[in-house]
């Protein structure tokens, strides 16, 4: 199924300024895997050396915040939108 993913500002520079990307998958983790396959440069930022979703990535989906550790279990539906963001800290 097709969904839309909003990139955070810092990752848009990897994609030539694109804010929204189309992707396929029935879970948030599957969507990230699809994006990484289509855009390997972006994939570096999603997955660490052991194939895990980077631990500080956070998703907003259907009005809820989803942690990286729960991305595999989070089911999504055709036409859903996922906001990809991250833990915030520092000055």
């Amino acid at each position: 199924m097709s969904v839309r993913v909003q990139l955070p500002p810092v990752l848009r520079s990897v994609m030539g300024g694109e804010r929204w990307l189309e992707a396929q998958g029935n879970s948030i983790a599957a969507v990230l895997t699809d994006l990484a396959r289509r855009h390997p440069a972006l994939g570096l930022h999603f997955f660490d050396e052991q194939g895990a979703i980077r631990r500080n990535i956070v998703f907003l989906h259907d009005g809820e915040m989803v942690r990286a550790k729960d991305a595999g279990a989070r089911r999504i539906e055709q036409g859903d939108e996922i906001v990809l963001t991250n833990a915030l800290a520092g000055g």
Partner: protein
Amino acid sequence: MGVALVVGTKKGAAVLKSDDRKNWDVQFQLRGWPVTASARDDKGRTYVAVNSENYGVAIFVSDDLAEWKQLAGAPRYRPEDRGNAEHHRIVSQMDFTGLLKDGGRFVDQIWTLHWAHGALYAGVSEAGLFVSRDRGESWQPIDGFNNHPSRDSWTPGFGGLGAHTILTDGKNPNRMWVGVSAAGLFRTDDGGKTWNPKNKGVNPAVDSAPASTGQCIHHAAHDPANADVIFRQEHRGVHRSDDGGDTWRVIEDGLPVAELSDGHRCSFGFPMVMDRPSRSVFVVPLDGDNFRFPRSGQLAVYRSDDGERWRARTKGLPQNCYAGVLRGAMAVDQQSGIYFGTTSGSIYASSDLGESWREVASGLPRVMSVEVCTT
């Protein structure tokens, strides 16, 4: 002569350009990416390393210092590589959810990029060495270094376990040196297959550290055309080797000596660069490992012309500076130009081997790296 500086900061890259080394144009690029290192290859392509605590490590390239493209390849360890638990503890400040896995080895920062003999090398943290022979598109680990037999004895420094300094021999592509905090300097003579610690004559970082692999090297410099004469800024002082690192001796005549936290007295600092035509070496001493700012606030660059004695150069540098200069934040253009950035975001430039200085940019984020190229 035109000069361009690529200044890596905590929040992006500042590109400074000048046609006369007096008037500078500053453009802030790669916004949002911590930029930790940069290098330029012999065809004029510039590589910068970024590392985000959220999104990991990557490399951007540019042929004009204006448009940047991220490469799909980057140094990465294999899933089966085992990591250093103490290093994990040091670098896991952003592990809000406590998911940092025990056991794995991750590239969490590229400390240095180095172009030599048609290859691009990356020194990384957790300490390791990688090479790309296709201009950064793909990377291979140098296993002889990354799985060194002494690795279990390597102890992370204050900033973690990082390979931050790479030197190469201009005449012998099989010989190179890599500096690791806090395991010391290593040399290969067979193109990276085997490596030997080169720390004889250098005090370990702490008295309890291993004698051969317990040194906290901060930086090193040499002339690749005369590669066996190497200068080394250590946590515990400034040293020189005339035999490719086999033996070392202290050279601190004229340098300010500070008391370190453990009572040891030596000249403490981070960056070290060499102007090859003059063979002059430059360091920026700080007031020991407790304070890490210039003594009495006088920012000073020390220059040695004979590799033995040092003298301060302060003309044009501030007298009330309590910032530091990080190991990668100083560079030379090999035409008498010296440049460095501070942790408080100022860039200083000299076009006369450090005799006089000018602040050419200020208000930047914390400066982590400075690379220079002539145009």
